[in-house]
């Protein structure tokens, strides 16, 4: 019996009944729910300090700037960046990855260069590279997955060459919940002179993150999957690489000097933050990091892994259920299908019982093709879930089978 890691009273939405049932929220891989402290930080910002940052000398502007920069410093420390200037605020993982492809890729890739990635990537860590390849004449090379969906290092090696410029990989699969060997792949990438890009959308919310220990050159993640607001995310990069790359959004606050014909760029991080940033979102993400650190990332990692493995075990024991990927080790997400019943119909029956799961292709169509399915159901867990929620998942699965075979 695995209890929730936190007081459910911290999350106001979890008190809301759904279709007459207790809400069992199993869709945190899509977006997490928000604790009261994060919601309050947004209200506090708008009610007491709201002003544009970095521009004015009045009290409100000063306080807003201090609060946003404090959040940046907190996030830098949370991922063990070398300094806050390496932490760029974006809208989320998608924008962060697109920014890397544009800012670094457009500048440094040439015809015939190669980008190595896996077929399990979320579309946000796939399409920016397809587009970069189309713009530059570079080529995509795919790591062949093992039969259980994991990545073997010899298959990575097989795709590397002296033309490899970028290797990109999700740290945790958003469908399989598996851990990818980031440190080892980063070392192999560096040996051939490539940079290592890490999609941390599903890993940063669940695992302790140390960008230096993981050997990454860039890391992208989203605030809203780690208790923060939507519309805020992080692009972390080594300052030497960010300095060498070109900005991609031009306008206010990202400049040093402007005349009629040309402009020069601001120092990091402002160079990549053209326009007024999502100040409230940044402050809210800082509050989310406070909450996560109070609970402890090591405890969260253990919790997410235990719940995902329990859910896998219990789902796989039901007749007619296919669960995707290896039973263990895995974290936070479990994708499955009920034989003969489309995942949308599964999710509809679940919803009638207050159980929120995702159904669809999870923005990972190439992986769906490999698994030879059009879509799957997916349950995902976070620090407010418990074995009681796995019970609800199992009961809803049994009910779905009954409902469609009556």
């Amino acid at each position: 019996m695995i209890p929730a890691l936190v007081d459910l009273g911290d999350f106001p939405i979890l008190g809301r009944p759904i279709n007459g049932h207790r809400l069992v929220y199993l869709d945190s891989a899509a977006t997490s729910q928000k604790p009261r402290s994060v919601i309050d930080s947004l209200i506090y910002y708008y009610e007491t300090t709201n002003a544009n940052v970095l521009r004015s000398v009045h009290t409100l502007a000063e306080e807003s700037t201090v609060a946003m920069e404090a959040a940046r410093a907190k996030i830098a420390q949370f991922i063990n960046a070398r300094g806050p200037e390496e932490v760029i605020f974006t809208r989320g993982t998608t924008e962060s990855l697109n920014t890397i492809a544009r800012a670094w890729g457009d500048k440094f890739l040439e015809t015939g260069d190669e980008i190595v990635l896996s077929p399990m990537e979320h579309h946000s860590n796939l399409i920016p590279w397809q587009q970069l390849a189309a713009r530059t004449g570079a080529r995509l090379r795919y790591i062949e997955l093992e039969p259980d969906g994991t990545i073997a290092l010899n298959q990575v090696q097989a795709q590397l060459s002296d033309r490899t410029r970028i290797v990109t990989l999700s740290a945790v699969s958003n469908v399989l919940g598996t851990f990818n060997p980031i440190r080892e792949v980063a070392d192999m990438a560096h040996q051939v002179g490539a940079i290592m890009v890490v999609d941390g959308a599903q890993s940063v919310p669940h695992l302790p993150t140390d960008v230096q220990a993981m050997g990454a050159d860039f890391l992208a993640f989203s605030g809203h999957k780690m208790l923060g607001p939507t519309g805020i995310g992080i692009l972390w990069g080594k300052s030497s690489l960010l300095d060498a790359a070109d900005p991609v959004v031009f306008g206010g606050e990202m400049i040093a000097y402007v005349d009629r014909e040309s402009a020069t760029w601001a120092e990091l991080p402002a160079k990549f933050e053209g326009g007024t940033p999502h100040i409230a979102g940044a402050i809210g993400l800082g509050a989310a990091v406070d909450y996560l650190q109070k609970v402890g990332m090591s405890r969260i990692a253990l919790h997410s892994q235990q719940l995902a493995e329990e859910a896998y075990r219990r789902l796989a024991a039901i007749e007619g259920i296919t669960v995707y990927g290896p039973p263990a080790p895995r974290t936070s997400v479990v994708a499955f299908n009920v034989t003969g019943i489309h995942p949308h119909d599964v999710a509809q029956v679940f919803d009638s019982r207050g159980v929120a799961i995702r159904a669809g292709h999870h923005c990972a169509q190439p992986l769906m093709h490999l698994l030879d399915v059009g879509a799957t159901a997916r349950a995902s867990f976070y620090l407010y879930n418990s074995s009681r929620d796995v019970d609800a998942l199992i009961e809803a699965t049994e009910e779905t089978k009954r409902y469609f075979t009556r």
Partner: protein
Amino acid sequence: MNLDDMYRETILDHNQAPRHFGHMENPTQVVGMLNPTCGDQIQLELKIHDGLIEDIRFSGQGCSISMASASMMTEAVIGHPVSEALALAQNFKTFITGGTSTVPLGDLEALHGVSQFPSRVKCATLAHNALEKALTEPS
């Protein structure tokens, strides 16, 4: 929201035993359509002569609502003129978003409950959008 409002017996029946499912020889029209948000896909094959739908087949994969709706649609249009089939598709789309159809919809009326579930309306209309495409695009 009651599940039984959506999953009427007729729907489960069409889903379990879809009518006109499969392929035909020498179709005059073939169209495919995807629902990009959920990955559902449908292919329609039709044999049209002198403005009459002589035969129709569908294939693909999707949820019970999209498969049942496709199956019901084929029953409603087979043997009917193209103009009636187009009117049916248009009226069904009005009906499934809460409006009133001016033509009889047959078994498709069982899908009425879907209008209460906005996220599933696109499942119900997939086959009808494919039919419109097949009947309005040059072959």
